[in-house]
């Protein structure tokens, strides 16, 4: 291996380490916003929860968890040089992300028996799900960009930071929903 190649690899490893730190710091700062929303939910609603379809909640949650599984597969595939596996996993994740969005914004928002203007419950529910849906949407756009680049021959087993960043961001969106799901759909009794 030439000296130039060794220098390039060393620089890439350094950049990768700083990129990872930067991404995790961003995620930490974003987590504080979601944490604030969760605190607001428990402070304002206490032992009550919005009147929502729990089965629909379980379905959209399962879809998002499944999407994380396929995202992990896609990242693993690229880390092992399997481009077809990466493209397949990314595309499935993207489709599941869109299905989740349709489930929450297209269905849940339409059938919920309250509006955003209907007091505290409406404000909390639409702010939490809306802010999260916005993150899912940006994640879907990120996935589309990474998929397109992957199809055009970008990324390799050694260098695929964008894929890793996309995967970490997507899983973060999943982690947020892991807490939002019980907070909105499961904990407490339905507010009368």
């Amino acid at each position, binding site marked *: 291996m030439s000296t130039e190649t060794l220098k390039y690899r060393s620089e890439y*490893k*350094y950049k990768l*380490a700083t990129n*990872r*730190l930067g991404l*995790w710091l961003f995620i930490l700062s974003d987590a504080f916003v979601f944490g604030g929303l969760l605190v607001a939910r428990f402070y304002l609603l206490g*032992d009550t929860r919005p009147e929502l379809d*729990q089965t629909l909640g*379980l379905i959209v*949650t*399962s879809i998002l*968890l*499944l999407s*994380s*599984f396929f*995202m*992990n*597969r896609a990242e*693993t*595939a690229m*880390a*092992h*040089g*399997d481009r077809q596996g990466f493209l397949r996993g990314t595309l499935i994740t993207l489709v599941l992300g869109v299905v989740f969005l349709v489930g929450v914004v297209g269905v849940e928002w339409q059938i919920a028996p309250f509006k955003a203007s209907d007091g505290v419950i409406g404000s909390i529910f639409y702010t939490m799900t809306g802010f999260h849906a916005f993150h899912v949407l940006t994640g879907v756009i990120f996935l589309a960009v990474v998929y397109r680049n992957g199809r055009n021959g970008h990324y390799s087993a050694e260098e695929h930071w964008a894929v890793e960043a996309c*995967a*970490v961001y997507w*899983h*973060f969106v*999943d*982690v947020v929903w*892991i*807490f939002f*799901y*019980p907070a909105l*759909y*499961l*904990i*407490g*009794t339905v507010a009368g």
Partner: protein
Amino acid sequence: MEENGKKQAYQMGFYVLVVLAVLTIGEYLLAVVGATWWSVLIFIAILKAYFVVQNYMHLPRLFESE
């Protein structure tokens, strides 16, 4: 060797999905039967988040030496 590593990583991803699925169905059933056990539901959520952060987000990578 390389193929073996990929297979193992896929397997780990699948095991995590199974654990997440079991925990999600568990918390759903817990809520549907009418229990309002905050602490149990929050504990399950923390457990699920731990599995995702550790195995899917690969948090330990952050502390790898350059």
